[in-house]
């Protein structure tokens, strides 16, 4: 019923029936009469009236299908992006993204999107809410939601003619036929509603804006405390002065002689390469070779050798070079910088294959690695005890290789030299 009908005497005819059967019969007549802008009104859905009226199936299911598919994609994308891309974190070794744990949320969002769309699309397709309907002006129409059945033909229908339409309705055996009055009422919601709506819409951004501004801004005022128990706890903090102990320290030192777990280095020869710990009190330059363990306490196996080769490559090669001759890349670089006066007082890394070093006992090599010697820093903190012995074993191999003869090479490899 559109606005330029405001000049018409009435907006249509409304017929009342007592039974659904009468209404259906009437509907078929009206449908067959070629009318297009008409409708029936019943207190409950009457089965069969869709066909009697010629109502085509609604597209609602397709809209819902689309919405559901959107929900599925949203859920999968959300889970994948947040947990596998934006901030990946490992949870008990589970894959960052897997269809198995993604399924519940995917299912729920599919149903949520589809379900919400179902209701709102249904209302939308029905053009509801529509609070000002001219039909409500007909008093009799109140029974449409109670116990009577109505048929309304809109006067805007191209075939509509007051007399013929009325005659048609009378021939269907209607209880009563009313005119739908044209009260001239506008069907557009009142302006003030729109204004209030816009104001509310803007107002709804205020809280979000406040949150955003407080998020982005800084303040030098102290934080608000809502939960004093949490913010001002009775437990002592690490650096706090407390009356409980004589020295006032809340954080207590471990009992003297406490050893951290995994740090009991009880075996002098294994952990420090010396026969007696007392000899470590002597400065390294003054120590006699006899204080050291002669042979490494770890058996010389191929596995240990390989480990030594790997660790040597990581820690030693930069200075000592791959063959242990001291011409590592750091040395090479230094040699380039010295003529440019960019390095002074440079000490060449030791050639570990020389007789001096080769004649040292294993424990001394171990000690050099652990505590450093001359300009070489201590590597004890970076390299575990076992690995240091492995490096010692590898250095021995380097020393042998430096002084090797053709007989030391396995027969199979001699051809390659």
């Amino acid at each position, binding site marked *: 019923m559109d606005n330029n009908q405001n000049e018409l005497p009435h907006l249509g005819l409304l017929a009342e029936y007592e039974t659904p059967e009468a209404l259906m019969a009437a509907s078929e007549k009206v449908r067959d009469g070629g009318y297009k802008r008409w409708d029936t009104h019943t207190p409950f859905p009457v*089965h069969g009236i869709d066909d009697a009226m010629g109502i085509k199936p609604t597209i609602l299911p397709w809209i819902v299908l689309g919405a559901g598919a959107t929900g599925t994609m949203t859920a999968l994308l959300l889970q994948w992006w947040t947990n596998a891309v934006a901030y990946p974190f490992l949870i*008990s*070794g*589970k894959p960052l993204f897997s269809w*198995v*744990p993604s*399924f519940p949320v995917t299912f729920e969002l599919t149903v949520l999107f589809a379900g919400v769309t179902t209701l709102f699309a249904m209302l939308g397709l029905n053009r509801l809410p529509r609070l000002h309907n001219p039909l409500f002006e007909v008093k009799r129409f109140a029974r449409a939601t109670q116990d009577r059945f109505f048929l309304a033909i809109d006067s805007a229908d191209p075939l509509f003619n007051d007399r013929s339409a009325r005659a048609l309705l009378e021939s269907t055996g209607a209880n009563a036929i009313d005119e739908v009055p044209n009260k001239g009422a506008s069907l557009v919601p009142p302006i003030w509603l729109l204004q209030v709506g816009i104001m509310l819409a803007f107002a709804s951004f205020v809280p979000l804006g406040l949150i955003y501004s407080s998020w982005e801004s800084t303040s030098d005022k102290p934080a608000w405390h809502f939960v004093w128990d949490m913010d001002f706890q009775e437990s002592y903090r690490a650096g706090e002065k407390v009356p409980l102990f004589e020295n006032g320290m809340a954080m207590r030192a471990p009992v003297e002689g406490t050893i951290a777990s995994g740090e009991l280095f009880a075996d002098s020869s294994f952990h420090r390469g010396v026969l007696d710990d007392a000899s470590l009190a002597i400065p390294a330059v003054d120590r006699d070779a006899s204080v050291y363990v002669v042979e490494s306490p770890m058996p010389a196996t191929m596995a240990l050798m390989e480990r030594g080769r790997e660790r040597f490559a990581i820690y030693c090669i930069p200075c000592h070079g791959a063959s242990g001759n001291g011409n590592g890349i750091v040395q090479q670089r230094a040699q380039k910088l010295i003529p440019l006066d960019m390095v002074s007082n440079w000490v060449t890394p030791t050639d570990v294959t020389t007789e001096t070093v080769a004649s040292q006992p294993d424990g001394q090599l171990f000690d050099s690695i652990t505590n450093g010697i001359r300009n070489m820093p201590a590597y004890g903190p970076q390299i575990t005890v076992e690995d240091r012995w492995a490096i010692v074993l590898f250095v021995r191999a380097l020393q042998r290789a430096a002084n090797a003869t053709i007989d030391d090479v396995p027969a199979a490899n001699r051809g390659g030299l």
Partner: protein
Amino acid sequence: MSHTMEIPQDLSPEKFVLGQRAGSLVAKAAGIGALALAIAMAIGYAGSDATTSRFLHAYLTSYMYFTSICLGALFFVILMQVTSAGWSATTRRIAELITMNLPLMGVLSLPILVSTLMGDATLFSWVDPSIVDNANPGLSHLIETKSAYLSPGFFVGRIVFYFALWIGVANWFRKNSIAQDVSGDPILTNNMKKFAAPAIPLFALSITFFALDMLMSLDPTWFSTIFGVYYFAGSFGVFLALLGILSNKLGGKGGILSGFIRDEHFHDIGKLTFAFVMFWGYIAFSQYILIWYANIPEETAWYHERENLYWGHVGVLFLVRFAIPFLGLMSRHMKRVPGRMIIFGGWIMVAHFYDMFFLTMPSQIQSLGYLKANAAAAHDEAAVAAIQSAADSFERMPFGGLELLCLIGIGGLFVAGVAHAFSKNSILAVRDPRMSESMTFHNP
């Protein structure tokens, strides 16, 4: 005024007996089936241990498949009675006749029962736990803790009991239903409804323990509380698929039940099938996600065999048994148009076989493993090599001649049984009190 249904005018049960149309199928199907089975047994029993193992697993797969169809039919009968369902009145007799195959399936369990009683641990390692120790030292202790339940005698006794129960219940319902064809007495419906209610828990427990006994115990170290429900979901689902196919054939144009089974029935069977595709998916997924998530090796080993050792079957199973039928059966159109249901009915029947296969065949790998370990312990190099080559060929082609022969064998006998039942009995419950409701109802 209450809704009174008139019993339709004189329908005589004789009109709905398929007679020779079905009868001619009986001899052919039985013949092919028996022959295939005989060949399979000959190959199986005469061959090496590895071949016997393969035969027994293949046999079990097909056996559980066809038994699940019968059990699904039985549940359909009981369910429709207990819910006083009206729509299914014209299709219920089909289900009742399929349950007539239960004695056949009982007899077909003999190869499994006999081999178990004779102490053959090829299929069920718990028959003789000591065979596992060479492959997995100490494992026999775990299996022995269950020996109160997993012992050959008790096992066989239970299987016999289940079949006695099922055959008893199925016969009772069928006899009453057929008697009603003649007398039209509504009291029979009341009685059937009354008995259907307690029949349900009996059915639930018996099918559960049947599944545990025949399928879950293939790996006696694995367990899952939902396993009985899983087998039930598959069974009812495959029966509904078969019902869809049979209804479409019998109720379609020119079919003997055309007019009695209409597009409304196709729609309802389609809806139930869709529901049970979802239900199966739900149960299978529940089992999978819980075991995946907790990641306890005791439980994941079973899925590991089916996923990693055995070309990623879990995903394929979900795709084939759930995702595709789910998407296909969503549309109302698919369910109503005759012929369409046949496509998905057939698909689900094949997918359910794949499900049975998924449950049984990977335990072949374990059996072969035990055989190999025992042969190795006995220093029998030749046997070890033979078993290894059997395992390799199995991995390359898990569905081969033996599996096909067992499927055709048991299937042929099953089809013969159904054809026989259809040829001798009315396929329509002509004087069911709800006949006219079934013939006139509408889906909105």
